[in-house]
């Protein structure tokens, strides 16, 4: 069954959470309208009509075709990246976002839980709060340990599932930012962390990231030069 309802996707390229949804929309070959939200100066209509929490990603689904900046009251509004990923998996059951087998689905969801707890906490603690790097290293060690040793993506195949879509945006930004020592941590700590994450201990994780970056749906949502330029000008990271 083909989806014929409109999908409008509110996003910004900085956001790893938004990128999750973007990759899913691409892999599902959904017919959607992207709208880049000015996250530094959000328009009033966004919280009023799309997401009361004011955050991205969000999607509107169904209702009449309208321009993204005049959302209709008739569309369904969805927020929270993990909820949207599951919604797209339900809407596009043949897109491989989630497998059909209940055990495999449970494994994908468990992986996503670890990404959102250990993975995210380490990322935030070190890169955005400038605290010690141990939670970040430990978080990625835990996620690496969940990857099938022989290769492939989180569920072992050669196609992305929501487990990978949830993880990869954080992983890619981590390697990118740490490689240029960009973050709230003291100068030099980023490069130290990068040295650890590029050491043999993390060979499997690096292979995984390489495999992700070769994937066409990842490629459709990621421009490394643009990301780097944007993060260099992010006021959050200006160090004295």
């Amino acid at each position, binding site marked *: 069954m083909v989806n014929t309802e409109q999908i409008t996707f509110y996003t910004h390229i900085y956001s790893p959470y938004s990128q999750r949804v973007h990759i899913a929309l691409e892999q599902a070959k959904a017919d959607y309208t992207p709208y880049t939200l000015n996250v530094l100066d959000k328009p009033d209509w966004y919280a009023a009509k799309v997401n009361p929490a004011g955050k991205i990603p969000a999607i509107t*689904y169904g209702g009449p075709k309208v321009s993204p900046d005049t959302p209709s009251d008739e569309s369904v509004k969805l927020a929270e990246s*993990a*909820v949207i990923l*599951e*919604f797209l998996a339900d*809407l596009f059951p043949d897109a491989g976002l989630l497998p059909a087998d209940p055990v495999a*689905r449970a494994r994908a969801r*468990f992986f996503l*839980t670890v990404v959102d707890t250990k993975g995210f906490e380490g990322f935030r603690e070190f890169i955005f709060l400038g605290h010690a790097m141990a939670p970040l290293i430990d978080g990625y060690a835990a996620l690496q340990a969940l990857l099938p040793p022989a290769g492939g993506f989180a569920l072992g195949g050669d196609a992305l599932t929501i487990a990978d879509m949830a993880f990869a945006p954080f992983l890619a930004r981590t390697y990118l930012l740490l490689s240029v020592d960009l973050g709230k941590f003291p100068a030099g700590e980023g490069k130290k962390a990068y040295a650890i994450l590029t050491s043999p201990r993390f060979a499997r994780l690096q292979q995984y990231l390489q495999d992700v970056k070769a994937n066409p749906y990842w490629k459709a949502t990621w421009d490394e030069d643009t990301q780097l330029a944007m993060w260099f000008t992010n006021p959050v990271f200006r160090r004295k």
Partner: protein
Amino acid sequence: MSQQITLYTAKICPYAHRAEIALAEAKVEYTRFEIDLRNKPDWYVPKVNPVGKVPAIAYGGPTVPADQPSPESTKLVESLVLVEFIADLFPESGILPKDPVLRAKARLFVDAVSNKVSPAQAAVLIRGEDPEQLVQAYEAVQALLPPQGFAIGEFSAADIAIAPFLARIELNLANDLGGFPADQGEGPKILELLRAPKLARLQQYFKDIQARPSFATTFDKEHVLASSKRRFAELRAKKYGA
């Protein structure tokens, strides 16, 4: 589906309770094994859950006694993952409806429970912080409810996520149990805030949950109360001195 299901659980634990409600909704035969969280069997961590927590499900593999889990069964953990798993195994259970939009609404409600109710419950009932956090969490959840019925109309994973927390919050506060000092009427005072007229809709929702057989048959009030009394006596002794 004819694969065996063994659930490792504990009556006191709200997370494990979610899995029990889901299995009751699915009306399936399964093996229930109670884990004493204060005295875990030594095979539990190496053979079932390395993190040592409940709930956990051992799915499939040969039929073995629950205390001799087989390496051939698949071990699954995380209460919300387990509820989705049971919904996938038994789609006719209604734990999640078929419509993608309703499924998303159920998951958004679960998200609000995780991000608002759980943290507020820990802050107020365990750490003894300002009860206003819990009032606000209840208001946030109430705002998601339809005028009648359950979170998405019919009983679903959304209600399964919150029910064990509402029940234990109510039970503990009614018995003056929490991270606040004892015998000063703190518990009942907080409960009065949660029973304010502005939270009438949520109170009705909780009544509806309590009438649901899958909840009622899996909530051993006496056992949970006895455990809570013991647990908070220890917590208070540490916090305020014996």
